[in-house]
């Protein structure tokens, strides 16, 4: 809408001088508000405005004129001398001084000040108030924190079909990488389509392995070469030895020929200390330990058969499950066998001695990094510490656990700390200068079994591999990974003490055996032979009795513990009912057999079995069995009489 104001001016009046005069206000245009326009707008509700409730201020800048400054030193020259005295003239100054000294004020002042001053001087001489006591003692770091460990990272097997992580190896430089060997150790039960790959993981990247190693058969063990961090050695499930160079890629760089390799999965491979850094040795359950040189891996350089009868017969050989080699003792090595015997050998391929004491295969074997004479083994349900001097038995051992122990390792920084893993997925940290009966810390890492364990060189990080291929990285608290005061002395004295104890026990056993031998030789030999046959039966039955007694005692104890919280009348009830059964031949009140404690029932069962054996005729056995099924009470009565 255009608003126009038109005015008219005569052409003759152009350029004339302007005369201003007052004029009444005139309304030219009046535009009324048009409410329809409001439709094009939306009312804003609510409206946000900022307000400030403060004194309104304004900002100004001002700059002063530059002020020049300069730093100068002042030399204090003698001053204050009165005008008549010239400070440079010695005579005048001396005269002035003498004058002052004669002043009475001066004398009084000095006397007073002197006494105060003397007091302070004497004070200073008497005691040094800023003396440092306890300067020699260093600050004792009292770490009261409880031992703890926390999971930092988890590396999962990227494969669909999960395999167990059977071996771990830390990268030798800087420990930033971890090589994990995956395989399925169940005999011939490896699922179809299981991949053979093993991986190298970078600790920073848990999502994807850094490198995959592809052998022709799954790897059971995998080790980094401590001298050359690009080379890895792997022992395969089919008995071959393979080696990789990570610079060359994931395919096998070298593979041993199958005819000369092991006949069973290779359970242990270790690199040797050699100038060339290419020597290693491997052990397998086929009973052989083979030495290899990587440069010529087609054939082993040496083969030793683990035959403790020293006849070098492969048939008698014991299967080797773990291998141990300490670089500080380069001529010796140890082999842990499936039969529970540890064989210590020296490099010249001779078997030096054996240690027996485990009931099952020895899954881990490691010398103590601080005291190589003592070594740790794990097998069946215990972990044992041995000393080379004591061959009959271990010097220290843990109690029998509920689950099988699968792997163990010493801590590289503390001589008294070691770690063990179990089949129920727990990791135990033992510190025997702190507690000997139980682990210092027991952690449940995962629900499935843990198969292997490896401690990093700084003693802080532990990696453990599980049955489903999950590798967990744990960090241990600083209390468990820093050397405590006196720990080395305490640990070594403990080892010595236990070794001495074992030696004493050994000596006593030997004495007792000699005595028995002496007695036995006196008896008639024939009698002994005859007696042997019948003795055997009696011995067997006696052994069974003892065995069952022990089990019942255990069960009884467990029952007693379970029964304890229940009120007393129950116990009386059961015994009363039992008495009843003696008199009544009729039907039993239904609940009684349930109330009978488990051990009683188990004893009954045992008694039944015994009866079965003692009555070799099948008919009677059948009758007895039927009798049991039909009339529970009758057998019960018989049993009561038996027990009574």
């Amino acid at each position, binding site marked *: 809408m255009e608003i126009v104001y038109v005015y008219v001016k005569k052409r003759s009046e152009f350029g004339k001088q302007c005369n201003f005069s007052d004029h009444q206000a005139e309304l030219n245009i009046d535009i009324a508000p048009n409410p329809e326009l409001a439709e094009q707008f939306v009312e804003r509700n609510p409206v946000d405005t900022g307000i400030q409730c403060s004194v309104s201020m304004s900002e100004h800048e001002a700059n002063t004129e530059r002020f020049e400054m300069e730093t100068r030193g002042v030399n*204090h*020259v*003698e*001053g*204050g*001398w009165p005008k008549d005295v010239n400070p440079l003239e010695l005579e005048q100054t001396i005269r*002035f*001084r003498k004058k*002052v*000294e*004669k002043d009475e*004020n*001066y*004398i009084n*002042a*000095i*006397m*007073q*000040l*002197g006494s*105060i*001053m*003397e007091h*302070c*001087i*004497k004070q*200073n*001489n008497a005691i*040094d108030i*800023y*003396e440092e006591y306890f300067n020699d003692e260093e600050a004792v770091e009292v770490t009261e924190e409880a031992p703890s460990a926390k999971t930092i990272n988890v590396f999962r097997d990227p494969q669909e079909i999960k395999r167990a992580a059977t071996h771990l190896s830390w990268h030798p430089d800087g420990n930033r990488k971890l090589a994990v060997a995956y395989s399925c150790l169940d005999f011939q039960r490896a699922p179809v389509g299981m991949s053979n790959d093993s991986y190298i993981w970078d600790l920073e990247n848990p999502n994807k392995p850094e490198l995959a190693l592809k052998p022709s058969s799954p790897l059971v063990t995998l080790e980094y070469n401590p001298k050359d961090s690009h080379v890895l050695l792997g022992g395969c499930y089919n008995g071959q030895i393979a080696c990789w160079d990570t610079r060359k890629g994931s395919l096998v760089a070298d593979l041993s020929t199958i005819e000369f390799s092991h006949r069973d999965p290779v359970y242990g491979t270790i690199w040797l200390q050699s100038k060339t850094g290419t020597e290693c040795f491997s052990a397998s359950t086929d009973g052989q330990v083979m030495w290899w040189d990587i440069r010529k891996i087609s054939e082993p350089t040496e083969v030793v058969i683990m035959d403790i009868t020293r006849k070098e017969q492969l048939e008698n050989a014991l299967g080797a499950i773990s291998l141990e080699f300490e670089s500080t003792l380069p001529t010796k090595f140890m082999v842990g066998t499936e039969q529970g015997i540890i064989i210590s050998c020296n490099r010249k391929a001779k078997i030096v001695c054996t240690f027996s004491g485990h009931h099952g295969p020895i899954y881990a074997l490691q010398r103590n990094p601080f005291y190589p004479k003592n070594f740790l083994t794990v097998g069946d349900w215990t972990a044992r510490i041995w000393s080379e001097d004591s061959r009959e038995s271990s010097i220290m051992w843990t109690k029998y656990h509920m689950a099988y122990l699968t792997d163990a390792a010493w801590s590289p920084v503390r001589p008294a700390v070691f770690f063990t893993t179990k089949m129920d997925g727990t990791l135990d940290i033992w510190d025997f200068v702190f507690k000997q009966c139980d682990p210092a810390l027991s952690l449940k890492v995962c629900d499935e079994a843990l198969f292997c364990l490896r401690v990093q060189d700084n003693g802080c990080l532990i990696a453990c591999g599980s049955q489903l291929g999950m590798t967990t990285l744990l960090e241990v608290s600083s209390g468990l990974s820093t050397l405590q005061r006196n720990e080395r002395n305490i640990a070594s004295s403990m080892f010595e003490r236990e070794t001495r104890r074992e030696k004493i026990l050994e000596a006593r056993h030997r004495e007792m055996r000699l005595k028995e031998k002496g007695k036995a030789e006196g008896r008639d030999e024939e009698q002994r032979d005859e007696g042997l046959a019948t003795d055997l039966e009696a011995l067997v039955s006696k052994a069974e009795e003892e065995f069952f007694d022990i089990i019942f005692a255990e069960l009884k104890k467990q029952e007693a513990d379970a029964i304890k919280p229940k009120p007393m009348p129950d116990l009386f009830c059961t015994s009363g009912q039992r008495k009843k059964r003696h008199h009544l031949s009729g039907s039993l009140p239904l609940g009684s057999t349930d109330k009978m404690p488990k051990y009683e029932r188990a004893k009954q069962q045992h008694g039944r079995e015994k009866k079965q054996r003692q009555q070799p005729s099948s008919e009677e056995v059948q009758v007895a069995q039927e009798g049991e099924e039909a009339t529970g009470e009758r057998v019960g009565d018989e049993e009561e009489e038996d027990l009574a």
Partner: protein
Amino acid sequence: MIFLVEETLKRIQSHKGVIGTMVVNAEGIPIRTTLDNSTTVQYAGLLHQLTMKARSTVRDIDPQNDLTFLRIRSKKHEIMVAPDKEYLLIVIQNPCE
């Protein structure tokens, strides 16, 4: 009387650890000193000002208070200043260690 003064000063000087003694008047003129002139003059000038400052501090906090003694302990030794209306008695001592 005068030799009492002498004796006092001598006694002070002879104490264990005392390095130097000096008496300075209000104008900063060293009356009596056992150290060399330049050191004395330096001590006199600086300590005078410090004592004045210390005294005024004490009196500012409590007008009825007054400075009786000033001790400055440094790494090497201790400087003790006993102020008076007109004079300053300054002793430098090495506290026994």
